[in-house]
């Protein structure tokens, strides 16, 4: 099995290297063949690993020793357990679909080989991240996916907006990574090792350890710092600002990286660290609050966006907030479950949006769309399936995972849980509204741009096939995995929950053991508040965008203050631009021009030189070259010396 573990990421890496270095020689077909074969192999191997793990074969072992310093051994190694296996399958499956889709989407792009090389490299990095058995390699993968994200957002490097967005994404992520790295520093300090198994085993012993001179628990500090990393990567408020801008990148990577996989790395990481987070209620409450704010307030922004990709991006932010809340409520399994279902339906939504975008020759503004259902039936239907899953229609995958989260928060005893519960419940209404708004504006009504509409046609099979293949799990995975993942012992020891935190167990108590859990959730959920709010949002969207299309404009005028706040995304970008970007440059300029140029160089260095020059220019006057001047000076000197000697 160890060979299989190793081959899974390496298959992708080989593809990336070959397509990257020899892209010109092997041509377009060569490049997509080699990378797609790589990721296909990785997917098949991941399935094998998944089945093997389900049969109880776990693995934890090193691959090689990265470094040794002061007795600490830093290793590269794999931990293969239930959590890893789920992530591997999700990542490689979505990546596989996106690879195929890219053949169609990037058909005319001159950077075709480069693109395939990057996404294969991404898959490799992401696999190394999820398969890691220690914090160091986790950080490696963490930064590597950030690098590929940077490269891909700026893939069209001639576009000013794209290269501004990728720099922003990298820097905002780096802020998170700073926290993450310090968290790792804390782990090394406290535990003396970076190996998961050792750290998690020792964690309970250090649970009460406080920082010297304070009452703060080390565990709280470490968890908060690690979570700052998650906030960067998983785009939680206030480090969310990079994700909407990342939509400047080509759509396939919006689906793969900025919806399905990379942005969920933070969620995965916190779930992986559950043995630590469980020991700090402070950290869990912080997680709850951040997640709830993200889930609700980012969804609101989604209401007013006109760019089709940005609507989905804000939806992603909001859904990441849902997952984060699940973590805060100690319902890690529900968080990971939602991560999985979301990966399928959100990748589907993005790829479908991409299908629309290429049909309209790179038009992304929904105000120029409309009526497309007549010409793009497959895209339309699959996107509706994705939407039904996203808004949590009972029976669709998103329903099970999202409902489980809302219920779990409901049972959580944490002080912040009440707030989170309200935010998430209200969020379902907003989600339904913006999702249907997107569908209605894009596919229904009359075409608003006749010319673009007349040229639109359904995308080729390489594009629609991944849509269909993603639509299937968007519908069915809920039915299959609800029982084991949420209520069974699916995750085994890979997720640790303290009994007093176990919200999913409390949820399970309400199930009737005689019947299937999935059926019970549907039966129970259909009359619950979240589903009713979803239905309300759907109807309202239908009224506003189908029945009375003049209403949205009127409402925007009526509530123009709120509308503007949402349109400006709460002004966070402007604040950051003013305070951090411009502030940083101003301080830098101040340090440089005042500190370095004026003080150090001007006064200290050149000043010294000037003083020396001045002294010598004064002294030079004495050296006149006339003998009688010198003789006079000597006599004076002699006089002074004699006086001094005689008087003493």
């Amino acid at each position, binding site marked *: 099995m160890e060979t299989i573990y190793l081959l899974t990421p390496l298959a992708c890496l080989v593809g990336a290297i070959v397509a990257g270095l020899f892209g010109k020689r092997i041509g377009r077909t060569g490049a997509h063949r080699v990378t797609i074969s790589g990721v296909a192999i990785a997917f098949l191997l991941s399935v094998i690993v998944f089945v093997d793990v389900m049969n109880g074969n776990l693995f934890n072992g090193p691959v090689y020793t*990265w470094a040794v310093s002061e007795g600490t051994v830093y290793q590269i190694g794999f931990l293969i357990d239930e959590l890893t296996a789920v992530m591997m399958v999700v990542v490689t499956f979505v990546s596989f679909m996106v690879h195929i889709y890219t053949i169609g989407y990037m058909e005319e792009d001159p950077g075709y080989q480069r693109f395939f090389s990057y996404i294969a490299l991404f898959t490799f990095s992401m696999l190394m991240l999820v398969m890691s058995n220690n914090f160091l390699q986790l950080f490696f993968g963490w930064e590597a996916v950030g690098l590929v994200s940077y490269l891909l957002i700026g893939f069209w490097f001639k576009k000013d907006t794209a290269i501004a967005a990728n720099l922003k994404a990298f820097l905002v992520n780096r802020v998170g990574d700073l926290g993450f*790295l310090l968290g790792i520093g804390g782990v090394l300090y406290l535990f003396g090792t970076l190996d998961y198994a050792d750290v998690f085993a020792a964690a309970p012993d250090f649970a009460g350890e406080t920082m010297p001179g304070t009452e703060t628990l080390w565990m709280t500090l470490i968890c908060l710092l690690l979570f700052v990393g998650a906030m960067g990567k998983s785009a939680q408020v206030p480090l969310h600002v990079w994700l909407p801008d990342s939509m400047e990148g080509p759509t396939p990577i919006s689906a793969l990286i900025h919806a399905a996989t990379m942005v969920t790395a933070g969620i995965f990481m916190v779930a992986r660290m559950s043995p630590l987070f469980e020991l700090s209620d402070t950290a869990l409450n912080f997680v709850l609050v951040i997640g709830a704010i993200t889930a609700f307030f980012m969804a609101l922004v989604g209401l007013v966006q006109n760019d089709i990709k940005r609507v989905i991006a804000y939806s992603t932010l909001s859904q990441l907030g849902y997952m984060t809340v699940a973590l805060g409520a100690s319902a890690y399994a529900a968080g990971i479950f939602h991560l999985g279902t979301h990966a399928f339906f959100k990748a589907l939504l993005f790829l479908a949006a991409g299908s629309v975008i290429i049909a309209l020759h790179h038009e992304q503004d929904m105000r120029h769309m409309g009526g497309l259902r007549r010409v793009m039936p497959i895209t339309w239907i699959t996107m509706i399936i994705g939407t039904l899953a996203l808004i949590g229609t009972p029976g669709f995958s998103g329903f099970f995972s999202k409902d489980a989260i809302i219920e779990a928060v409901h049972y959580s005893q944490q002080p912040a849980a009440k707030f989170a519960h309200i935010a998430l419940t209200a969020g379902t209404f907003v989600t339904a509204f913006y999702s249907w708004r997107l569908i209605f504006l894009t596919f229904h009504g009359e075409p608003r741009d006749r010319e673009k509409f007349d040229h639109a046609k359904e995308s080729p099979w390489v594009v629609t096939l991944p849509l269909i293949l993603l639509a299937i799990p968007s519908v069915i995975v809920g039915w299959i995995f609800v029982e084991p993942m949420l209520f069974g012992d699916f995750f085994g020891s890979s997720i640790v929950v303290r009994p007093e935190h176990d919200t999913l167990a409390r949820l399970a108590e309400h199930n009737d053991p005689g019947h299937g859990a999935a059926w019970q959730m549907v039966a129970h959920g259909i009359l619950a508040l979240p589903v009713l709010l979803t239905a309300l949002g759907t109807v309202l969207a239908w009224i506003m965008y189908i029945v009375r299309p003049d209403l949205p404009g009127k409402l925007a005028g009526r509530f123009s203050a709120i509308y503007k706040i949402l349109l400006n995304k709460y002004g966070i970008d402007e604040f950051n631009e003013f305070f951090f970007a411009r502030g940083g440059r101003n301080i830098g300029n101040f340090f440089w021009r005042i500190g370095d140029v004026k003080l150090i160089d001007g006064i200290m260095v050149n000043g010294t030189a000037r003083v020396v020059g001045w002294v010598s220019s004064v002294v030079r006057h004495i050296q006149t070259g006339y003998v009688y001047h010198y003789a006079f000076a000597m006599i004076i000197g002699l006089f002074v010396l004699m006086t001094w000697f005689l008087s003493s």
Partner: protein
Amino acid sequence: MFGGLLSWVIWLPILGGIIVLATGSDERAPLARKLSLAFSILTFLISIPLYTGFDTSTAAMQFGEKSIWVSTFSIYYHIGIDGISMPLIILTTFLTVVVVIAGWEVIKEKTAQYMAAFLIMEGLMVGVFSAIDAVLFYVFWEGMLIPMFLIIGIWGGANRIYATIKFFLYTLLGSLLMLVAFLYLYHQSGSFNILDFHALPLGMTAQTLLFIAFFTAFAVKVPMFPVHTWLPDAHVEAPTGGSVILAAIMLKMGGYGFLRFSLPILPDASHELATIVIALSLIAIVYIALVALVQQDMKKLIAYSSISHMGFVTLGFFIFSGQGIEGGMVQMISHGFISGALFLCVGVLYDRVHSREIASYGGVANTMPVFAAFMMLFAMANAGLPGTSGFVGEFLVILAAFKVNIWYAVLAGTTLVFGAAYTLWMYKRVIFGEVANDDVAALEDVSPREILFLSLLAAMVLIMGLWPYPFLDVMHATVDQLVTQVNTSKL
């Protein structure tokens, strides 16, 4: 006297330099180039056994040679290497090959003299890292300034005279105090052997004064805030090869000096004054990074970036833990590759457009895609991306700093953001975007010669990032001993 392997590594390039000088005028430049390349490669090859034959289990000096030089003052030609100097010697011989290749077609005037200066400097720098006798050390230390002075003064830019004099005065002033310190230590111990200095008991006042003397010499070389302003000027005026050697190796002399002299000879003063050194290091990391952010000249930006990165070296050293010192050492070696590579990248652009201003470029990726890919790698390495050598040192130092004081780690960690900000912002303005002007439109992508030297450095950056184990492995024994020395009071 010159029988040992180590002596060959010192004197062969110097001999080669003299032979290259003898080829004379520019008519025979091709011969001078070929000879220089041959000598630099040969020196690199004979330096490899220093690594392969190195005994990692001992902290004692290896490949030692000792013979009397000036018997009256018991000055010896005494050389040898340990886990601290050996990696720096190999770095020197490796980078000299790179620099010779990089100067191949670029230097059109006084080619023989240019190449010879680098070869002679190589020998002297290896001498600095190998000397065990303080006087010998001092001779190499000062001698190495002369070729660098000439390189900047003759092949440099428009304002080269100001830069060379600033460079020379700064470093000379520092070294003179070091000489005084040597004389005092000789007076106390009756020997110029550095290892005898290590064992010499010293009172607190003496230690403090000696520390200040050494500190002045080494802080200027590193350079540390606030004696750093000579470096940006020197870099801007220096020819590409000069910048590479200056950043990659000469700055390391300062760090090396701390490890060879300050820490083991003056453990108590080191502890006493560590807070100041750490504070200056942290200022370098944060303040200089912000200064780097607003530079408009690429070479100045990289020079400031160097100062900021060297802050990790001094920070790591003055934590006095094995992890910190090894982190600082790794940072020195890695910075040799990365800063060298970045200066070469600027050189590649400068040779074509004759401007170092960021504003003169834009959209270089359109016309030089291969170059853009190389520079991306080096920019990311400069930003400390895991998987590149730039990460290893910073990672070890930040983690070591965390153990001492969490705020040290927080301030040092800001480099994750600032380092990425200034490097990638420059990259964005130079490489990305539409083709900015006719100069950029007319650019030709890197030649096979340029690909060769960039690939050599890229390979090192990646190897060291993905597997730093062998680099660290050779240091352990020496660093362990050093940690014991610095944590044992002499009072």
